[in-house]
């Protein structure tokens, strides 16, 4: 059962080849068998079986809710789930039990999803390797000595190992696309505002965006149909957003113009460049036209991103003060001691580093040189993308500079870790949609190709990736230990 994609499972459930309860039991067994992967921080077996039973009842009544009805999934542990612990993989929130569901959780519940539990991430989504989770690192299913990527590392590893057909993730600077690439699955960061942020623990509010992670682009479209839409509870959720993402999947790619930015390939490892050029050639064979383009300011996207992300994080995470909820230090001598020790003991090293950087770039004397200048760079990057999208329909490049690295390789060098976001962070700054799909393997590790589009062009990105995946089986590869 677990080899199947979401769309296949949807059809098999409709044909009554098996029930939602049987499917859920199968995945629960796999999750238990593969605990060593450490993808889950909480398995909600009873909750999942109750949802599966309700789904089977709807099906017998001919009242299924959506194509996702009865299909197991799990949420990154950054989405608030009512009465189910939501930790952000931080000591700070290790005992936090939300009294409400995030809008995404609510929407997927209404779509009939079977929620199996919560998935690991770098603490507060700050990290690119999942080595920063309070509950221990997740392993890459393709090689246990390598990282799964981050911050949505648990989501990517669980889908790659076929412990789930799909999962949710969030992407502030690449946190859906980079782990999707490292684990050999497909993931999309939609246009900023496409999916409600209500109930998602905030990291950097002008950059954060939720999205689905699954085997194929077709699956992403089916899931986005249920996740997206304006939400009155999130004033940054867009009223322009699409609500149907699967209509264009089978469109012909003839005439689609794909831009290949020269700056994306300058200095890129040759094996990685070869993989992306092979992907480009396949798109060309499907009717698309390849165009070399220039994309300015690629080199300043990562520093601009980290200034803005850390600044927003320092503001967002000021709420964790040991008073209202979350970790409180023992025996505080006064209120200031309570604030300072609760935060210092409750946050991990990477979170503290980013809060320090964010506080510094916002402080008097540095604000204009760093924060305001980064926001000017943000406009330059958006202008540069707008200029490119006047010439081409989509941009193609690598998702990451290399395949997944080994545990510990970048842990002591924050700048080296930051530079892993070279190809992903700029789209968050510009609010653009971007999709990563499997592009092949280097030394047995998967790599991803990234499609970037103009605002609200998700249907085109999904159409392209779906057509690619009709002629290629990279996305169907399963790590040998999990077949």
């Amino acid at each position, binding site marked *: 059962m677990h080899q199947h994609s979401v769309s296949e499972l949807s059809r098999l459930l409709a044909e009554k080849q098996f029930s939602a309860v049987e499917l859920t039991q199968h995945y629960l067994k796999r999750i238990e068998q593969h605990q060593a992967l450490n993808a889950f921080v909480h398995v909600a077996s009873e909750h999942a079986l109750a949802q599966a039973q309700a789904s089977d009842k709807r099906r017998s009544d001919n009242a299924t809710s959506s194509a996702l009805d009865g299909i197991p999934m799990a949420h990154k542990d950054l989405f608030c789930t009512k009465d189910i612990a939501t930790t952000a993989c931080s000591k700070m929130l290790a005992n936090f039990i939300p009294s409400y569901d995030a809008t995404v959780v609510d929407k997927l519940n209404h779509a009939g999803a079977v929620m199996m539990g919560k998935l690991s991430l770098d603490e507060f989504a700050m990290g690119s390797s999942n080595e920063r989770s309070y509950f221990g690192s997740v392993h890459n299913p393709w090689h246990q000595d390598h990282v799964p990527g981050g911050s949505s590392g648990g989501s990517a590893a669980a889908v790659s190992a076929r412990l789930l057909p799909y999962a949710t993730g969030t992407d502030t600077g690449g946190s859906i696309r980079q782990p999707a690439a490292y684990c050999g699955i497909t993931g999309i960061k939609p246009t900023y505002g496409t999916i409600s942020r209500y109930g998602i623990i905030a990291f950097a509010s002008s950059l954060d965006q939720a999205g689905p992670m699954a085997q194929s682009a077709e699956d992403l479209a089916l899931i986005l149909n249920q996740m997206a839409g304006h939400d009155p509870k999130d004033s940054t959720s867009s009223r322009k957003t699409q609500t149907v993402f699967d209509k264009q999947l089978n469109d012909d790619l003839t005439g689609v113009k794909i831009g290949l930015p020269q700056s994306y390939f300058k200095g890129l490892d040759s094996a990685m460049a070869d993989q992306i050029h092979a992907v480009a050639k396949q798109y060309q064979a499907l009717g698309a036209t390849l165009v070399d383009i220039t994309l300015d300011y690629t080199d300043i996207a990562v520093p601009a991103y980290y200034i803005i992300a850390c600044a927003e994080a320092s503001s967002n995470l*000021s709420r964790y003060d040991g008073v209202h909820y979350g970790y409180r230090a023992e025996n505080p001598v006064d209120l200031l001691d309570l604030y300072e020790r609760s935060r210092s003991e409750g946050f991990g090293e990477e979170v503290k580093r980013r809060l*320090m950087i964010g506080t510094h770039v916002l402080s008097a004397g540095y604000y204009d040189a760093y924060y305001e200048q980064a926001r000017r760079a943000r406009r*330059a990057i958006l202008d540069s993308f707008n200029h490119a999208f006047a010439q081409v329909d989509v941009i193609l490049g690598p998702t990451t500079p290399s395949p997944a690295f080994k545990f510990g390789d970048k842990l002591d060098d924050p700048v080296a870790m930051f530079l892993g976001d070279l190809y992903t962070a700029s789209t968050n700054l510009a609010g653009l949609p971007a999709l990563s799909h499997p592009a092949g393997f280097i030394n047995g590790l998967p790599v991803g190709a990234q499609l970037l589009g103009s605002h609200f062009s998700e249907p085109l990105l999904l159409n392209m990736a779906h057509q690619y995946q009709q002629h290629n089986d990279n996305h169907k590869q399963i790590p040998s230990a999990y077949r």
Partner: protein
Amino acid sequence: MKSANLEIVAKTATLARLKLSADEQERMSEDFSKILAFFDAINRPEISALAPLGHPLNDTQPLRQDIAVECDMSASIQTNAPAAQDGFITVPKVIE
């Protein structure tokens, strides 16, 4: 440079309401040097005249209507509070 950085780290920790050990301050000081040098790449004269961009779609933020909504979650909020008593979240005494 090192002592200047340590001074900045100490001041920033106070602003961020973080209490760092001597070891942490030392490590943070080294990280600050590397990260701030990395950030210097954005000092490009040709972008200095641009208007800063806040909203990634260059949109303005819509405001919703100011309508009061009943929302009594005090019981569930208290269950997540580190310390609560008689319907109130408690903190160390601040008035002698």
